[in-house]
């Protein structure tokens, strides 16, 4: 780093950054300009800066792909609709309380499936709403009766889900993904399917909660975040075909998204 009088390279660049911005020529600016005029290192630095910026500007000239644009605006539209609905329903909720990571995980899936915008806040802050809701949830879960089937046969899973839920829900056949069973889940008072798969020995759960007339929503990746940083499981949610859906598992986000895409299609 060159020394030119009282100002070194780092201070001179800071004082004149970004170089194209108009600034009042006070003492510090004059000193910085004097330094840069005489400093070969700074001259080279600024020349490289112009090259890197030009390279980036050429990349920026490209537009975001239409697929991405559509998805972004689809997500905004979905969030706006759900925020309006949540605004009408949120009056009676209890204040947030802290819970164990396991409970947060279950509640986060429920919130993501059924609360949309509210679910995002769950994940951001690692809190859940309404202590009493879990007791009700557990009581109702026991009242459900036969609530699971252990099999790798998609036909058997489909028969079980159709019998229990009264609608046809089909287990998927995907390369590298093994079906291991299905359960009836109860999320915010609504019965749905939770189909279990395994990938390389790791379990993932596909939630399908019927929601006739619900708003279609694109895939949203929601890596679970707690106060201590990022930990599994990762969650991907979407809505369509008359159901809210989520995929939850301890996989890398990219891998979970790949499965979600395959399930959507």
């Amino acid at each position: 780093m060159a020394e030119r009088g009282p100002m070194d390279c780092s201070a001179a660049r800071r004082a004149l950054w970004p170089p194209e911005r108009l600034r009042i020529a006070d003492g510090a600016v004059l000193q910085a300009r004097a330094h840069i005029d005489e400093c070969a290192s700074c001259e080279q630095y600024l020349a490289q800066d112009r090259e890197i910026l030009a390279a980036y500007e050429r990349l920026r000239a490209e537009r975001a792909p239409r697929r991405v644009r559509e998805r972004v605006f689809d997500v905004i539209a979905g969030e706006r609709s759900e925020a309006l609905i949540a605004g009408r329903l949120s009056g009676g909720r209890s204040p947030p309380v802290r819970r164990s990571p396991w409970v947060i995980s279950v509640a986060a899936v429920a919130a993501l499936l059924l609360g949309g915008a509210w679910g995002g806040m769950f994940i951001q802050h690692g809190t859940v709403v309404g202590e009493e809701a879990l007791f009700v949830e557990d009581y109702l879960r026991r009242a459900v009766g036969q609530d699971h089937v252990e099999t790798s046969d998609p036909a058997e899973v489909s028969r079980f889900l159709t019998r229990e839920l009264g609608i046809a829900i089909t287990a998927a056949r995907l390369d590298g993904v093994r079906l291991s069973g299905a359960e009836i889940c109860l999320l915010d008072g609504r019965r749905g399917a939770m189909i279990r798969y395994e990938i390389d020995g790791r379990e993932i759960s596909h939630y399908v909660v019927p929601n006739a007339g619900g708003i279609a929503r694109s895939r949203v990746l929601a890596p679970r975040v707690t106060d201590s940083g990022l930990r599994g499981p990762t969650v991907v949610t979407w809505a369509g075909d008359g159901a809210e859906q989520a995929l939850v598992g301890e996989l890398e986000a990219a891998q979970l998204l790949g499965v979600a895409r395959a399930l959507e299609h």
Partner: protein
Amino acid sequence: MPQAFEELAGRKIDDLFSGSLLLSGGHEDAAEELLVWTVRRAFHAFARGDSDGEVERWLEARLARDFLEIFGRLGWDGDRIGSALFRAMDRIPPRARVALWLLLLRRWSYADVEDLLGGERGELEALLSHRASLSEVVGVVGERPAEGMNG
């Protein structure tokens, strides 16, 4: 004049996507997920009136923070856009990517980048030393528009 979030997002989507691609080292899936995640959360923050100062910079700051807090910690494979600049970014640490994107390419001031990163005094200079990786590829290879960006 008050504006809808959709207007703001529409104006910034290309900038945010190119920033997202750069931060993600050219991984298209990662860039898309980061962008969607940021826009989704920004929608609610905007509705609460949490946007402060220049809203376009506020969105860039949110993208950078979401990258650092979440997406910079994930591993990605799969399709990548074949740009030397993206490949160079993929090889440097997440905080350095954010520093270089905001300071060098989005022309933020040193003070604003330091505020966002919240690190110790002097950390920014260390992060900016990774700039050499970028100038190397731009100087040697020359940079052309990304292939497949509209694909």
